[in-house]
């Protein structure tokens, strides 16, 4: 077995910390952007008014649909009711009009953070000549990297800056959990983990978790937006103001459904790959080990979520709650089950 490159490992640790600090800065800026949203809204409305003066048929909602669009539909109308025109695109496309300098700096910081973070994660893998997801610290840091990277990938095509505070916040929490909660010096893998399946099973599990993390933030916003829309319908105050920069509850629901569907497929794959690995390592593909139980529970919750979308009375708020509960089970599975529940998956690697 090749020796561990300790020099590279210490660089990895250092860059992990720097990346965490950069994420924290991005989080603060995103939060500032959110707190200043009323200013942004005023600026947007001024722009809008100018646009409308020039061109009576302003290209707002559904601009991309061109000639065939015949209105954004009744739900969007109620969303905007009583709070002026819509400021964000229902399909989360960039409108080109929105100038949010603080949020843009935060996005730039996220990019820098991801670059540093990616270096740290890859360096850790290279230093040990193996995949960088062999213990809790590494699941956490790799997972945080994927959450941030997937978020940035979506940002290229979709204006989801409104998610920034939540995503950056969750990434900071994950990085803190890794470096404070589960700090683990770099080491070789124990024999039970020396299998090609660690590459397949764990990477897809972490990627699925990253997607579920994104949809969790969207579902929380969906609930907030839903309540705001309900308040507006009954003539109540259109607060909190930052939600005007967030798409409607319906749009959030549709997008989190699409991402959850991908996450669910990945989770199904994780389950099957895990079963194949379990057969190879322990001789049985399924044994109701605590970790297997919770992976199954999460799978069933998200299966319920997908069914809820096709059940009358279960769309909207209830589906959002299922998505949130699924994420809670995911976090529970990762933290509590890994550390406190006895089982075959006791690879937390936390020094005693």
């Amino acid at each position, binding site marked *: *077995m090749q*020796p*561990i490159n300790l020099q590279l490992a210490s660089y990895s640790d250092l860059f992990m910390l720097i990346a965490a600090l950069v994420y924290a800065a991005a989080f603060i800026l995103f939060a500032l952007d959110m707190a200043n949203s009323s200013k942004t809204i005023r600026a947007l409305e001024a722009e809008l008014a100018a646009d409308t003066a020039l061109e*009576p*048929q302003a290209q707002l909602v559904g601009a*991309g*649909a*061109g*000639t*065939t*669009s*015949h209105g954004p539909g009744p739900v969007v109308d109620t969303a905007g009711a009583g709070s002026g025109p819509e400021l964000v695109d229902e399909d989360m496309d960039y409108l080109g009009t929105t100038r949010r300098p603080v949020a843009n700096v935060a996005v730039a910081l996220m990019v820098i953070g991801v670059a540093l973070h990616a270096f740290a994660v890859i360096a850790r893998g290279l230093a040990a000549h193996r995949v960088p997801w062999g213990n809790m610290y590494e699941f956490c840091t790799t997972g945080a990297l994927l959450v941030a990277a997937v978020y940035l990938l979506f940002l290229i095509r979709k204006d989801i800056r409104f998610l920034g505070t939540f995503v950056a916040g969750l990434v900071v929490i994950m990085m803190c959990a890794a470096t404070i909660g589960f700090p683990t*010096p770099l*080491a*070789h893998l*124990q*024999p*039970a983990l*020396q*299998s090609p399946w660690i590459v397949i099973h764990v990477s897809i599990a972490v990627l699925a978790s990253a997607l579920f993390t994104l949809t969790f933030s969207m579902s929380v916003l969906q609930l907030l937006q839903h309540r705001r829309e309900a308040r507006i319908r009954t003539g109540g105050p259109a607060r909190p103001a930052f939600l005007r920069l967030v798409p409607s509850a319906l749009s959030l629901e*549709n997008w989190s*459904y*699409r991402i959850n*569907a991908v996450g*669910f*497929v990945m989770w*199904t*794959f994780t389950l*099957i790959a895990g*079963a*194949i690995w379990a*057969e*190879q*390592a*322990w*001789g*049985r*593909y399924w*044994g*109701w*080990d*605590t970790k297997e*139980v919770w992976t*199954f*529970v999460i799978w*069933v*919750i998200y*299966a*319920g979520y*997908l*069914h*809820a979308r*096709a*059940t*009358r*009375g*279960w769309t909207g708020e209830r589906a959002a709650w299922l998505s949130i509960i699924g994420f809670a*089970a995911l976090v529970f599975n990762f933290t509590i089950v890994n550390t406190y*529940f006895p*089982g075959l998956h006791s690879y937390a690697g936390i020094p005693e």
Partner: protein
Amino acid sequence: MSQQDNVRVVRDERTREDTPQKPEVELPSLGFTGTLRFMWTQLTSMRTALMLLLILAVAAVPGSLFPQRPAGPEIVQDYLEQNPVLGEWLDRFQMFDVYSSVWFSAIYLLLFVSLIGCVFPRAVKHAKALRSAPPRTPRRLSRLPEYGTVKLEPAGPSPAAAVDQAATYLRKRGYRVEVREEPDGGASVGAERGYVREIGNIVFHLSLIGVLAFMAVGSLLSYSGQKILVEGEGFANTLVAYDSFTPGSAFSEDRLVPFSMSLKSFDAVFDRESQTHYGQPLDFTAVMEVQDGTDGEPQEQVLKVNHPLDIHNTRVYLVGNGYAPEITVRDGNGDVAYQGPVVAQVQDQVYTSLLVIKAPDAQPEQLGFVGFFLPTAYTGEDGVAVSIDPDLYKPELNLNSYYGDLGLDEGVPQNVYVLDTDDLTELNSRSVDAGGITLTPGESYDLPEGKGSISFDGVKRYVGLDIHHDPGKWGVGFFAVLALVALIVSLFVRRRRAWVRGTTGPDGSTMVEYGLLARGEDFGLREENLALRRQFERMWPVVAPEDPQNRPE
């Protein structure tokens, strides 16, 4: 699986239930078969399926909170002893056998019945849809969620020709098409695509039944067992050779694949470089000699964690390892009462190993020993020796000895790893004058009172093997992978309908209008609309829209 048609029925039933004062009026209207049918529609409704799914998720949780008998019956026994009152109640509700319990089985069986009742009618319906033409063109396409019109210049094709060209294009895009004459002179095409989405949905759900069925096959035909092998020892795959054995419900001994194997050597590598993980295991390698059948050629094979041996679908797994000190016990008469390696149970990362020796043949008194084997012994200031490394740097035995009746003569089965000292008299321990026995390899010790002697001859290694045979796993794997593929199809293939109608406008030019309808979740409908429009503009001389809203960007 939407059963929205049933919602009204449900509501009607509720009202009935709320008015019990007139049951004689209301009940006959349902009747016995009616009630059954009502219960069946209830069970197969989407809402019930969703509820059962959520209940299943909750019901699976206790199995991770309480120890489970299939995983470790002795842990359950400990739990019951420590929590006699609570434990008894939990046991009554099968909390230690959650996944074979009545209530858990009831939930998943109901779920599967609901699934079958939901999927089969859908399969029948879809089989019909597959054989029938796309639905007829709605009169008002503008009411569809996606809709558009284009007006052709006079040089453009006639309505019928335009519709034909549109139909060709739609077929190229994967639609099934049917061109029809319209009553008022024009023509229209009805098109539908994505039939495979529903097939994926049905196959996914049926695959789950396949998974469950082959799990049941496995539980009938499988067997698994454990065997500990010390270096040099052999094992033949017969029932008596196993240390423990769990047969499937339909197991018979002739199902055991004939083979034999022996442990030639075992090697463990521990981390010697890391400051922080010093002594962590890096590699376990067992060299086995395997003989296929009763007269096959013995072959040397390497057995590692994650790399089981496979002998005609019976798989041998390396699941544990440890040390087996070689001991010779002589009795008071000087005769050998026990000789051979003793399997010591590993207690921790540094292989502190618990050791029990029973010598029932010793005369005049039976002898028993209990203590620890330490691969690398270190004696602290308090005089207690501990192991500080998993490797054999300074092996040492620390034993207490006893004499008396070991209790083996009554024929009651005993745990070989536990010495019941209640009826025994202590000879050696830290609390008696003679002290404990400390031995290094090659040393001997004479027991007090001339009861005999014990010598530590050397150390061998042993491996813990799991031997599994499960013919059902191939079916489970096949249906699991099929379920995954079908799931991807059912979630990401888009099923949609399209209609294009060509008419002659008031000024004699051809007007083409089209509409799109998604069936199930489809977020790409608007893109499809744009794609159709782009294609129409490419195919035909389209009149530029006049109103500002329709101005091309």
